[in-house]
């Protein structure tokens, strides 16, 4: 008896680990670059590494702080609208979600010098917005279902969808629907410094404390819309006749901490051009994860069974480490027109999990191997242009961003692409106001279970509006 209870207990722990454990999707979520927090930069397609002449240098190139000659206080807001059109078994479903956030508060202090530059800065900025949504609804005519995919757990049994031997009469042909709503973001608290080591050559660095959160609420339904399953799903239990609905919810909550460091170099060639190089050292994220599970089954008899949420929910912790990010950039200046470009190398196959708490080391090793198998190195490219109309103090900007998919097998449709534009205005020579708009589009897929048996094909469009105000005195 004791042995039997022990086996069941072990199975529950193992199951909890499997359904809540991280995989490469979680690593990518932390590894993908965000859109930053500077409207001027975003208007120029974030091709700002070689410019970086404001307090957003903490994000782009800390050496750029060395270019500041006036005390700067700046901040801004961002608004994101995420549209997702999902095709699921020939059925299109649209949904959207929005988020508004304070994305930056920065203070930069250039120290008085006889020559050269020495600047220190404190910044809070939001680098990543996890806001997204997926909604789907369609009839899956195959002989697969989530209920069947969970047969190696106790969930179908607990919901009276199997007999005592874990066998079920469910064999696909169900209407599948649901939605996944993601929210949260990553905040950085950064101390930066930069110095002019040779005339027009700047070196800067920063140390960052990371905080943030992420929440993913996943509601999933399987309905017998064609009344295929009229018999008992649990043999000997007449109340389980006429299966109607299976509902499964899992909610993932992350409390994110961590730190990272960045080193930057910037060289200004006379008044014509600037060149920038940055090395983003691996970011170490500490994830405290809470995984909540609930579910139910409904029958034509009026019988409803619910899962014991406490039984399946759990908490784990682990670290996730991102790879080095190396960026090279240049900007040229001619008669009020600035053209800038940059490329960033990120080797996603070096994403790594470590220090598991509540997960086995073997499982972590397996997931790290999967990362190496399915992810690859990419080059992100940013292009931007800005023209200043000197007589009215107005700036007009445009840009383009491409962030290739980190998955080896993905087509170019899966690359994140953004077209950006923006305006800037200066008032009284001290207050700068910048506004940017970015339109992003890409495709994505996700599997409700298994691989390509219940897949949503997503057509994503993201609209971002960013406002930054800068006061220099």
């Amino acid at each position, binding site marked *: 008896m004791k042995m039997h209870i022990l086996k069941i207990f072990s199975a529950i722990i193992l199951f909890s680990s499997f359904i809540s454990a991280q995989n490469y999707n979680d690593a990518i979520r932390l590894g993908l670059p965000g859109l930053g927090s500077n409207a001027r930069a975003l208007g120029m397609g974030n091709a700002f590494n070689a410019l970086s002449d404001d307090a957003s240098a903490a994000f782009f190139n800390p050496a750029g702080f060395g270019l500041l000659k*006036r005390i700067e206080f700046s901040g801004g807001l961002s608004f994101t609208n995420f549209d997702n059109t999902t095709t699921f078994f020939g059925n299109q479903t649209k949904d959207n979600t929005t988020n508004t956030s304070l994305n930056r508060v920065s203070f930069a202090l250039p120290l008085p*010098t*006889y020559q050269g530059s020495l600047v220190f800065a404190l910044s809070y900025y939001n680098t990543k917005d996890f806001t997204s949504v997926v909604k789907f609804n369609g009839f899956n005519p195959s002989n697969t279902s989530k209920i069947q995919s969970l047969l190696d757990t106790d969930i179908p049994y607990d919901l009276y969808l199997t007999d005592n031997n874990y066998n079920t009469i469910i064999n696909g042909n169900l209407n599948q629907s649901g939605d996944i709503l993601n929210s949260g973001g990553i905040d950085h608290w950064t101390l930066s410094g930069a110095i002019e080591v040779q005339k*027009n050559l700047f070196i800067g660095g920063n140390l960052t404390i990371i905080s943030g959160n992420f929440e993913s609420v996943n509601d999933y339904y399987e309905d017998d819309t064609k009344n295929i399953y009229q018999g008992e799903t649990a043999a000997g239990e007449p109340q389980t006749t006429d299966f109607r609905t299976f509902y499964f919810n899992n909610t993932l909550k992350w409390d994110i901490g961590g730190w990272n460091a960045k080193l930057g170099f910037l060289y200004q060639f006379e008044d014509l051009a600037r060149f920038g190089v940055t090395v983003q050292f691996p970011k170490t994220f500490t994830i405290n994860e809470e995984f909540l599970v609930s579910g139910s089954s409904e029958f034509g008899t009026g019988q409803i069974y619910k899962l014991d949420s406490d039984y399946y929910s759990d908490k784990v912790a682990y670290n996730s480490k991102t790879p080095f990010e*190396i960026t090279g950039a240049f900007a040229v200046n001619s008669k009020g027109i600035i053209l800038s470009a940059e490329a960033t190398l990120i080797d996603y196959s070096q994403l790594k999990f470590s220090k598991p708490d509540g997960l086995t080391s073997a499982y972590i090793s397996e997931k790290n191997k999967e990362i190496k198998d399915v992810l690859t190195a990419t080059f992100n490219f940013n292009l931007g242009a800005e023209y200043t109309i*000197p007589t009215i103090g107005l700036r007009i900007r445009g840009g383009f961003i491409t962030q290739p998919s980190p998955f080896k097998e993905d087509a170019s449709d899966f690359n994140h692409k953004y077209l950006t534009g923006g305006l800037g205005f200066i008032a009284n020579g001290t207050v*700068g106001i910048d506004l940017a708009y970015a339109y992003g589009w890409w495709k994505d897929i996700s599997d409700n279970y298994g691989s390509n048996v219940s897949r949503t094909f997503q057509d994503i469009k993201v609209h971002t509006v960013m406002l930054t105000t800068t006061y220099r005195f």
Partner: protein
Amino acid sequence: MKNIIGLLALIFLVNLTMTGCYTIIWDPTEEASYSNDYDSNDEFYGEVYFGNYGGFYESPWWISYPVFIGSGSVSGTTTKDRTNGRNDETNSFRNDGGRGNNERNSGLGNNNSGDIINTPPPTRNVTPENTSETQTPSSTGTRNSSSDNGTRNSSSGNSNDNSSVRNSGNGRR
């Protein structure tokens, strides 16, 4: 990758060690006028093509530049035609704040608001017969050669009555 980063770090470290750092931080214990000595780097945002953004990016906060309002200014304000260059008028405040000026202008400061400061009449008369004249604010003639008048008029620049004598023998005595 780590080797490349290490090499880059080494190059910059050697560079710094060999040549020293370019930046010279202002020493607050020195009285030298660092604002005059500041060696600026190349201006990426020249005012010709970037207008007010030039000052926004290129003017160090610790150096006070004279305000320049161009002919195509956004604000639409204009400046009066003036004769450029150093003259007696600018000489009078060129060295304000330095040693000596405080004593010379004690009690008057740099009031440029246009208000006429009413100062008490001179208490030291040149001769007993001229007492009534020296007590008149709009004093003219040789009475202005007195040291008291020179000081008073130096702060009442907008008084046209005194314009003829404002710069005469002002200050440098």
